């Protein structure tokens, strides 16, 4: 299966085509009979792949690591493997190999392997990524491949994506039942799954871009599922266009890396070259910054996050799948995939601040702040997602790579669970998501939804021993903020993340109060939903609770399975330090979460802070702050009115001017010129010349005829005279000249 892992994205793609072609024929609201089995099979295959990956033995040298790379894929790998033989013989001089530069690589790789074996007290196995590709297009020296790169993080995402997709498929078959475009919905769900899996398994940056764009398109289609209502189509467009802004960064970054790595798209090669200092640091920095722009748009980091809350206009299962668990983590995954580029470009090791960390930290806090003023439960969860993505980006920025992916793993489960829970709430509260107006007291009516939601909340808040605690704590430890061993000393990130953790607990408690406690404020008859909705909730709650045990400190199964070791990933020599479990950090984070939750609890449940109620109404600063949050920091206004407006108005005016004066001027001028030319041609050329010639010919013929006619007098004697004269002339000619 490791060789044929391309089947896993191919299956949902096939499902997409089948649903498009045959979905309607199955009957109304029955298209899930194609989608669910296919995604189910993909899920099983993903588990099989994971099992096979976990069962592999590692090899101790680089040769083994590159032996699983197909010959045609990675050019670095082929040269390494050809030079590996020479290094294995012990000759370490540069002249012994055909490519002297790669010979030097192997020399550095082999000692790394032994060094890795010496440190850590155990044999650290080199990761053997399975890379398969086939050549898609040749153009001179340029080769475009399409293939798969399977290593630990790809396996992780395969499992996560297929699991959440399967659960969302099952949930949707009840939630979206009877919808106007049921078949279409399931077709796009399948297409999204296929695109995300394609993206995850991408072997080169070009393929990654294709997958990136495809998931963007599916997101657009699914957000705008009910596009007949204008706000939904507006939201879809906003999502797509905001992502486009970041995609420019992606494209530039990919291009820079392509040329920096010697015209090579292969991710493995780029990583190896970046990790071994063969790419200029400035180029790495430039491409990192461009790729960070892409991350900011796709993974909803601050400034370009504005599309994510609006994307809640789509159906809730879509929000759960795409905007909580899978698509938004595409940015995280991309950074994780190309980590040496960021690690060396931003000089993550040993620093105390860098762009990734700043962006992530700011997002974590600002997103959390915005969640406090939302009345729509999905928007709360959306801002929560923004905040949690900020956590993941910060983790990557401080060098805690494994922590970021681990948080991605746990977050997918409990956030998807929370979203589906919100959907379950709305499904029975008259399809409204307004928790202030239309919900309340749901815990008595919908117990299963309530308990799964609570478990998800506790996990999100990071309460021991649920999953969120372990992953969030690992991130906090990885910042090195308390002076503990880590890649760098990111104090700013540490403080911001602590604050964000407190806020997370607070706003989630607020949400639970509004939705599940108090009196029912709506107008319907809420009831618990069917098993197709509640069973996925239960499964996700359970996963959200126990997923943390995958990476218990000391055992670190997750880290061993997922984090790569090899020339293509930063290791000890490059300065990547794995932070150990730090009790102080753990206690601090728990205190922050509990403190935040407690504050919210007291404010809402017990009404303890009566004087604070309505504070923003009385205090001008507080009011200004609340208005700022309610207007989402005026970012939407900045984008739509100021930036776009100021560009589009003068451009539109200029374009209009050009159209009226230049283009129409040219056209009118051409017309007028044609008229003048026509007149000229008519008068001078046609009348005088042409008609003159024609008439002239006629008159010449007439006059010459008239002249010639004078010979025809009708007098025979004249004819006789002419005849005799001609005869005399002829005779004269004959006699005188020819005679």
């Amino acid at each position: 299966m490791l060789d044929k892992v391309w089947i896993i994205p191919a299956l949902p793609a096939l499902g997409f085509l089948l649903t498009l072609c045959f979905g309607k024929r199955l009957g109304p609201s029955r298209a899930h009979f194609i989608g669910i089995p296919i995604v189910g099979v993909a899920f099983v295959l993903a588990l099989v792949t994971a099992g096979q990956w976990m069962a592999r033995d590692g090899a101790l040298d680089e040769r083994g690591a590159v032996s699983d790379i197909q010959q045609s894929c990675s050019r670095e790998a082929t040269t390494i493997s050809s030079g590996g033989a020479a290094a294995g013989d012990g000759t370490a001089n540069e002249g012994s190999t055909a490519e002297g530069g790669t010979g030097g690589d192997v020399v550095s790789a082999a000692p790394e392997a032994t060094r890795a074996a010496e440190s850590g007290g155990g044999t650290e196995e080199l990761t053997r990524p399975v890379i398969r590709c086939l050549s898609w297009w040749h153009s001179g020296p340029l080769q475009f491949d399409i293939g798969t790169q399977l290593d630990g993080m790809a396996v992780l995402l395969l499992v996560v994506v297929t699991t959440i997709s399967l659960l969302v498929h099952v949930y949707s078959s009840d939630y979206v039942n009877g919808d106007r475009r049921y078949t279409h919905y399931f077709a796009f769900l399948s297409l999204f799954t296929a695109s995300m899996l394609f993206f995850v398994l991408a072997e080169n940056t070009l393929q990654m871009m294709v997958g990136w764009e495809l998931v963007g398109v599916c997101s657009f289609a699914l957000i705008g599922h009910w596009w007949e209502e204008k706000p939904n189509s507006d939201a879809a467009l906003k999502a797509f266009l905001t992502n486009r802004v970041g995609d420019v960064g992606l494209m530039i970054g990919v291009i820079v890396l392509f040329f920096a790595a010697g015209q090579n798209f292969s991710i493995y090669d780029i990583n190896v070259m970046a990790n071994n200092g063969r790419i200029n640091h400035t180029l790495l920095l430039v491409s990192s910054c461009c790729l960070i722009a892409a991350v900011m748009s796709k993974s909803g980091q601050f400034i370009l996050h504005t599309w994510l809350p609006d994307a809640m206009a789509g159906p809730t299962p879509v929000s759960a799948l795409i905007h909580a668990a899978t698509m938004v983590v595409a940015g995280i995954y991309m950074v994780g995939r190309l980590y040496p580029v960021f690690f060396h470009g931003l000089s993550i090791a040993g620093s105390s601040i860098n762009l990734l960390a700043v962006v992530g930290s700011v997002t974590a806090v600002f997103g959390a702040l915005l969640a406090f003023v939302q009345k729509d439960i999905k928007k709360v969860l959306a801002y929560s997602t923004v905040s949690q993505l900020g956590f993941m980006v910060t983790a990557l920025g401080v060098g805690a790579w494994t922590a970021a992916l681990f948080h991605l793993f746990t977050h997918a489960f409990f956030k998807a669970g929370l979203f589906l829970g919100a959907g379950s709430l709305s499904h029975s509260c008259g399809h409204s998501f307004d928790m202030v107006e239309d919900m309340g007291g749901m815990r008595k009516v919908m117990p299963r939804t309530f308990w799964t939601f609570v478990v998800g909340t506790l996990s999100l808040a990071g309460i021991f021993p649920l999953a969120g605690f372990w992953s969030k704590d690992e991130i906090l430890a990885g910042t090195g903020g308390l002076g503990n061993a880590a890649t760098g000393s990111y104090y700013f990130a540490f403080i911001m993340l602590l604050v964000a953790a407190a806020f997370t607990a607070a706003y989630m408690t607020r949400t639970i109060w509004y939705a599940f406690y108090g009196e029912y404020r709506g107008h319907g008859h809420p009831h618990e939903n069917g098993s197709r909705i509640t069973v996925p909730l239960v499964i996700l709650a359970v996963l959200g609770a126990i997923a943390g045990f995958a990476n218990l400190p000391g055992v670190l199964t997750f880290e061993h399975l997922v984090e790569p070791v090899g020339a293509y990933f930063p290791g000890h020599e490059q300065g990547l330090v794995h932070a150990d479990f730090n009790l102080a950090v753990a206690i601090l984070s728990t205190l922050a979460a509990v403190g935040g939750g407690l504050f919210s609890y007291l404010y809402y449940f017990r009404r303890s802070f009566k004087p604070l109620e309505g504070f923003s109404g009385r205090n001008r600063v507080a009011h200004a702050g609340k208005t700022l949050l309610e207007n989402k920091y005026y970012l939407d206004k900045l984008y739509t009115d100021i930036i776009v407006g100021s560009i589009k108005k003068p451009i539109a005016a200029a374009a209009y001017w050009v159209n009226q004066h230049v283009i129409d001027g040219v056209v009118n001028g051409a017309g007028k010129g044609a008229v003048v030319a026509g007149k000229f041609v008519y008068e001078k050329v046609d009348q005088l010349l042409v008609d003159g010639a024609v008439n002239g010919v006629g008159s010449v013929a007439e006059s010459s005829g008239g002249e010639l006619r004078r010979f025809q007098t009708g007098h025979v004697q004249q004819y006789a005279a002419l005849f005799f004269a001609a005869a005399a002339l002829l005779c004269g000619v004959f006699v005188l000249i020819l005679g």
Partner: protein
Amino acid sequence: MLLNQFLLLAAVLFCVGVYGVIVRRNGVLVLMSIELILNAVNINLVAFGTSAGLAGQVFALFVITVAAAEVGVGLAIVLLIYRNRRSIDLDELSELKG
């Protein structure tokens, strides 16, 4: 006797006859001019024929015959013209005028 003198005489007669055909208005006079031409031709024939037996003379005889026939028919035509138009002025006969 030189051959030339007869031939030249014939040539002169011929040319005078041609002049007459061209210039004369009266149809009968034109016919007379034609007779001049024919007689010039006869002289030629006979003059050349002296060196070759009697062929020239025989042909001249035939010419005279034909000339007679021609004059007969020609005068009949002139008479007809006279009857139709009360004049035989050839200048008036310009029906072929183009």
